[in-house]
């Protein structure tokens, strides 16, 4: 945006003079103008999927605000009290102070229940929007150089968000959260050799002990939020430094960003969007109940409710536990080896490690050291998109398995049938998804190529003077064609001997990975081909 010179000519009003003086005062003492210039000129391209990260940020702010309110009234203590609040079915029941204060927030503190529900719904939205944001970044290849580090920081944020969610879920000390903690305790104890020690350290003795709520509380309100805020800061700093990606389009190149700058348009828009997100969360929180701890009652190690599940983002881990076949347990060297715990831990660990390091893995396979600022259309990177689809399927199956009991009751199936189907799908689903997605991507690329070269079928049949019938193809405009033809063409890496004239195992591995990645590909339409096709049509 350029300032209009006519404004300078006019005499300044008192307000303008004050603003100018104040800005000058601050700038002389902080040199902030450089930062404002840099950040304020940050360009945001207009595409709906670029706003998902914002949703995560805004719901995090909502979580901070509502969470602060809750800390005023929540008592993170496991001291035994007899509940004497206004919820009749729990009157006189023994429970921890944490549970009693949660009930007080829900029933006896003005606005407390709304705040609890805002906090919890916002937390669910926070993690969900992070998930969708990550999928967007993945499928558009926006994690490629120079953004690999920011992907990793985003991944760390995702894990921290899940940790925040789980610690928060465990704080009210109700039946559901206690059961969740018991499962965590079981998983920790299933780790060979060190498991039991870690469990005793975490719970301050045998489960459930009297320490866990206050320990989780410190993690939940201090340590984890502090790390999250720091990580968000770095994430956004890198976002400014790296600039935003954009989809290919006329005038959009790898060296520019087309969109609106932060100041003033985007900031106003984003500010408005924050209130919209806040509004949506509040609307949901005021109309839909979430985690009614009073129904669950205080934690007691003996009862477990039917339909006990963690919040959705921990569901994949719960599902992994549910899918382990029975009897995976043995005794070696006098120790019990619970492979029913170890196997899910290893598999989930591998899964999230692949997610975390995917940009580096792909960069190694492709050998691509160029910077990429143009977001890929998912179809133009068929193998990556297929891997993503396989990953999504794998996650979705685990996720579904966590609600196997509810699937069984609601679709009138047997729970064994659901579990066995999920076990089969966990292995075969990703493979099927991989091949289907890859073929669909290649098919779409072929279609794009066809359209770029020959245009749309217009449906208009014309008879030529000599009697031949042809269908007239409608040619694309240059603008439309741009989107279809501008993507990077890759070729599998060649195996080359190194300085010593040897071909190392690493190179062979890399070459075969690269072949797997780029073996099936549709080359983008070249300018020459376009010219050629024009000649044919004219």
């Amino acid at each position, binding site marked *: 945006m350029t300032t209009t010179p006519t404004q300078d000519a006019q005499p300044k009003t008192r307000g303008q003079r004050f603003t100018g003086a104040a800005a000058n005062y601050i700038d002389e003492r902080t040199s902030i103008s450089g930062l404002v210039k840099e950040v304020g000129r940050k360009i945001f391209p207009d595409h709906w999927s670029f706003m*998902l990260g914002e949703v995560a940020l805004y719901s995090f702010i909502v979580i901070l605000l509502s969470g602060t309110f809750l800390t005023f009234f929540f008592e993170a203590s496991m001291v035994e009290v007899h509940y004497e609040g206004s919820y009749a079915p*729990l009157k006189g029941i023994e429970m921890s102070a944490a549970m009693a204060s949660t009930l007080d927030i829900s029933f006896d503190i003005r606005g407390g229940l709304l705040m609890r529900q805002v906090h919890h719904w916002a937390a669910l939205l926070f993690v969900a929007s992070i998930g969708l944001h990550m999928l967007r970044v993945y499928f558009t290849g926006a994690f490629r150089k120079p953004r690999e580090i920011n992907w990793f920081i985003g991944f760390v944020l995702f894990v921290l968000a899940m940790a925040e969610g789980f610690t928060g879920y465990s704080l009210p000390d109700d039946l559901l959260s206690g059961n969740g903690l018991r499962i965590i305790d079981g998983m920790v104890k299933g780790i060979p050799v060190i498991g039991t020690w870690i469990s005793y350290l975490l719970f301050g003795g045998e489960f459930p002990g009297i320490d866990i709520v206050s320990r989780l509380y410190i993690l939940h309100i201090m340590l984890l939020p502090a790390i999250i805020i720091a990580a968000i800061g770095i994430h956004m700093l890198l976002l400014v430094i790296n600039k935003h990606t954009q989809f290919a389009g006329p005038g959009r190149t790898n060296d520019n960003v087309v969109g609106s700058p932060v100041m003033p348009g985007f900031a106003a828009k984003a500010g408005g969007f924050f209130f919209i997100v806040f509004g949506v969360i509040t609307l949901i929180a005021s109309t839909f109940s979430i985690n009614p701890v009073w129904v669950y009652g205080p934690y007691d190690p003996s009862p477990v409710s039917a339909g*006990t599940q963690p919040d959705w983002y921990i569901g994949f881990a719960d599902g992994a536990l549910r899918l382990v076949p029975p009897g995976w347990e043995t005794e070696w060297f006098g120790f019990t080896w619970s492979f029913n715990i170890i196997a899910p831990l290893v598999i989930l660990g591998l899964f999230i490690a692949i997610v975390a390091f995917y940009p580096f893995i792909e960069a190694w396979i492709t050998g691509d050291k160029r910077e990429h600022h143009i977001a890929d259309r998912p179809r133009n990177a068929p193998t990556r998109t297929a891997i993503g689809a396989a990953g999504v399927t794998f996650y979705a199956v685990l996720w579904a398995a966590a609600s196997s009991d509810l699937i069984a009751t609601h679709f009138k199936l047997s729970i064994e049938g659901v579990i066995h189907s999920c076990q089969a799908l966990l292995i075969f689903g990703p493979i099927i998804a991989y091949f289907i997605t890859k073929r669909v991507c290649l098919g779409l690329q072929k279609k794009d190529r066809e359209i770029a070269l020959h245009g749309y079928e217009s449906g208009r049949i014309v008879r030529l003077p000599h009697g031949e019938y042809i269908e007239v193809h409608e040619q694309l405009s240059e603008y439309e064609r741009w989107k279809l033809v501008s993507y990077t063409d890759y070729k599998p890496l060649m195996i080359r001997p190194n300085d010593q004239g040897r071909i190392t195992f690493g190179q062979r591995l890399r070459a075969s990975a690269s072949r797997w990645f780029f073996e099936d590909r549709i080359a983008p339409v070249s300018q020459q081909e376009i010219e050629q096709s024009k000649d044919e049509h004219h």
Partner: protein
Amino acid sequence: MASKAARASGGSRSAGRRHPLATVALLLVGLLGTGGAYALFTSSATAETSASAEALVEEGGKLFAANCATCHGLDLQGTTQGPTLIGVGAAATDFQVGTGRMPMAITGPQAEVKPVQFTEEQIQALSVFVAAQGPGPAIPADMYLTGKGDVSNGAELFRINCAMCHNVAGAGGALTEGKYAPALSGVTSKHVYEAMLTGPQNMPVFNDTNLTPEEKADVITYLKYLDETPSVGGFTLGSLGPVSEGLFIWIFGLGAIVAITVWLTAKSN
């Protein structure tokens, strides 16, 4: 058969004293006698009541033979298709028939609730008939069904004894091999009591030493409380816990947000 014995004992008492079913008959006579006497003092239709008690057993027998005997046997001895009903009592009959579970439409993992096939009177007749064939748990007295017990004790008992299958909010849950614990909202207090007492389908029996009648009344009080108290937090999404909450936030929460982002970035034409 027992009704025959009852009639026989009415005719010549000494002859049938050592008959195996004499106790049953005596009990029945006693019950009918006290019931009849009670009716005599409270109801104006005195003559009809005592006559109808007899008729009830007879009618129940006919209904049983027509609707139940195929699977449970003409003498209630049970067949390969269904268990014996000797000793199940009026409570079990009233529960199974009164909730529409019996007669079963098809064999499956468990008998499902469906529209009740008999009238109140017919159900009563069947219950009296089955009870007359062998002693078993009786239909609970109204004093336990009022929902005026100790709600917090009931809630605690419910969490400890019932929630693992029926879910803390009574929303139901899955069991093995396609069986399930049904949702408890809208189930009448009488049927809840009878279910606890007789353990229908896969449910364990909570007899009176396990859960005293007063404790059963407390559980009923809590279920009534759940039924009658509106949810304080808003719509409950089926009281299914985090699964429905997670689906809701993904479909409707994030769905709405994405719709808004599309709207915000839409180019004006």
